[in-house]
């Protein structure tokens, strides 16, 4: 029984982490129709920027997180404006551009920061113990931040003009532009919002786990799984799917061991995708 509850706690904390990542990924696809292969790169960059702020500039951790979000959002803004914007309608070209960016980011960070894991710790450590169940404090912090980010994102999208503009562009770009939505401003904003979210996740999670050049790779596969399950372009779907993926990973790993867990997850998503191509809540995705 203890294992069962513990797996649930882990599943929720994994879910929170995957939700933050999946939201950014889905936002970019839903609004710009871009499959962001560099998502793991922005996650890693968020970790390294936060690490640099803390250890090189001596900033307190919260400031470092803000710095990380700002840096990754800025890079996202610039990359969208000067690289993606011209080819936004060609799904293959934007996919390849983000892939190229990812290779540059991961090679750059390996060259600058070297191959070894960095010394980078989350300020809050220790765990609450309820009998034999433990809930790490840092995971709670991440969970809280994730829920606030979810709420903030929901508020931005459904309660502000920027959000209304972004959703309009997502539904039908031609009509939205006809009514004065300026993609020149809104597209980079959407991309920056998404990469900022990935940077935020990196700044929060890499001190809890580990910060080294390879951490970006598994992020891509997990983001894909979460977003496919949730349905491309659907924010609610992505958040829901993130917690499902977290739970499945937690329970399969606890009860079947690491490698089989990953296999179960992949096969599950493959089957679901084929029999329900729009995912849980997604809508028929636009043809590439």
């Amino acid at each position: 029984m203890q294992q069962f509850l513990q797996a649930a706690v882990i599943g929720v904390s994994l879910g929170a982490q995957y939700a933050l990542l999946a939201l950014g990924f889905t936002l970019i696809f839903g609004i710009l129709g871009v499959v962001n292969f560099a998502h793991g790169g922005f996650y890693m960059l968020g970790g390294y920027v936060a690490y640099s702020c803390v250890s090189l500039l001596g900033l307190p951790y919260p400031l470092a997180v803000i710095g990380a979000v700002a840096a990754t959002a800025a890079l996202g803004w610039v990359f969208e404006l000067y690289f993606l914007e011209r080819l936004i309608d060609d799904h293959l070209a934007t996919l390849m551009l983000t892939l190229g960016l990812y290779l540059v980011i991961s090679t750059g960070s390996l060259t600058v920061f070297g191959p070894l894991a960095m010394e980078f710790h989350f300020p809050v450590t220790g765990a609450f113990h309820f009998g034999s169940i433990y809930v790490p404090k840092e995971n709670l912090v991440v969970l809280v931040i994730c829920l606030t980010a979810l709420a903030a994102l929901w508020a931005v999208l459904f309660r502000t003009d920027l959000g209304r503009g972004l959703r309009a562009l997502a539904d039908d770009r031609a009509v939205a532009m006809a009514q004065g939505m300026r993609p020149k401003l809104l597209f980079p904003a959407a991309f920056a919002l998404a990469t900022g979210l990935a940077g935020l996740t990196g700044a929060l999670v890499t001190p809890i786990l580990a910060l080294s050049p390879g951490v970006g790779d598994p992020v891509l596969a997990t983001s894909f799984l979460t977003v496919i399950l949730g349905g491309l372009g659907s924010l609610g779907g992505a958040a829901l799917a993130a917690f499902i993926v977290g739970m499945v990973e937690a329970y399969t790993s606890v009860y079947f061991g690491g490698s089989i867990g990953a296999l179960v997850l992949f096969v599950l998503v493959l089957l679901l995708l084929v029999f329900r191509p729009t995912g849980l809540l997604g809508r028929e995705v636009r043809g590439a």
Partner: protein
Amino acid sequence: MFRKEPVLGGAEIAALVTMAAAFAIPMITKNVLVYSVLNQALVGIVAAQSVWIMLRMNLLSFATPAFMAIGGYTVAIAGRYEITDAFLMTALAFLLPALAAVPLGALVLRLRGTYFVLVTFVLSQIMQLLLFESESLTGGSNGIAGVPAVTLLGTEMMSNRQVLLFACGIAFLATVITALLTRYFRQHFAAIEENEILAESLGLVVWRYKAVGFVIAAGIAGLAGYSLVNMLLTAHPSSFSSESAVDFIAYTIIGGRGTILGPIVGTALLVYATNLFGTHGQYAQGLYGILILAVILAARGGIAGTAAAAFRRVRG
């Protein structure tokens, strides 16, 4: 008004001549570095052609390593039972992945472009896990070492030169298949790539051509797997990772997705460049990234496409 299409166009002929020229290299030199670079390039060219076939229909596939693994491990497992005949193994290395691609294709080809990319990415991840979990068949994480050499018409292709010649043969065969397929179905693939709905409204059975492309691309990938295992004399999971799919896609896009010469030019140059990196391996991936950005932004046709366009402008 509507003349019959010539069986092979200019680009296809150039590709076949180039691949034929590759046979000459093992004859001219005995330099093992040239052998190594050329062998890696030949494996890359065949794998890049597999990616290129699907790109003819605007379908970007990350599943190449998965089908390469099927081809490669078929040869390695057959090697355990001393079955090494070149013709039999070439046929098997092509047919088994192609057969595996039929049910997979039925599952995957109904998906819109973006989903197709994601699913093929998941497919190559699943293949890696399957290789690890199937210890008895594939040697699990240790892979299968000491794969016996190919026997072609009775002679064992043991030496470096013979291995390279065999790789040239596989690459030439793959180029022939790719050229004939993409030439015969040129109009169908191009119509699907540009406007699937219009093509279907005119009567084109779109899914059938996608399936044909997917199955043959899988077979071609199987040949690449065969050539790779034959080069290394081992079948090891690390050779068929999903990262290698990124390399093959980079070769095709940078080389030029518009012409069959693209995968050949792209692979040859990038494999050559990577070997120059030798000591500073980590920069190779960074170079690919920069080259991809440059090609997508500046030279959409890739190297071969841009060269062709430049020549046409010069010729006026």
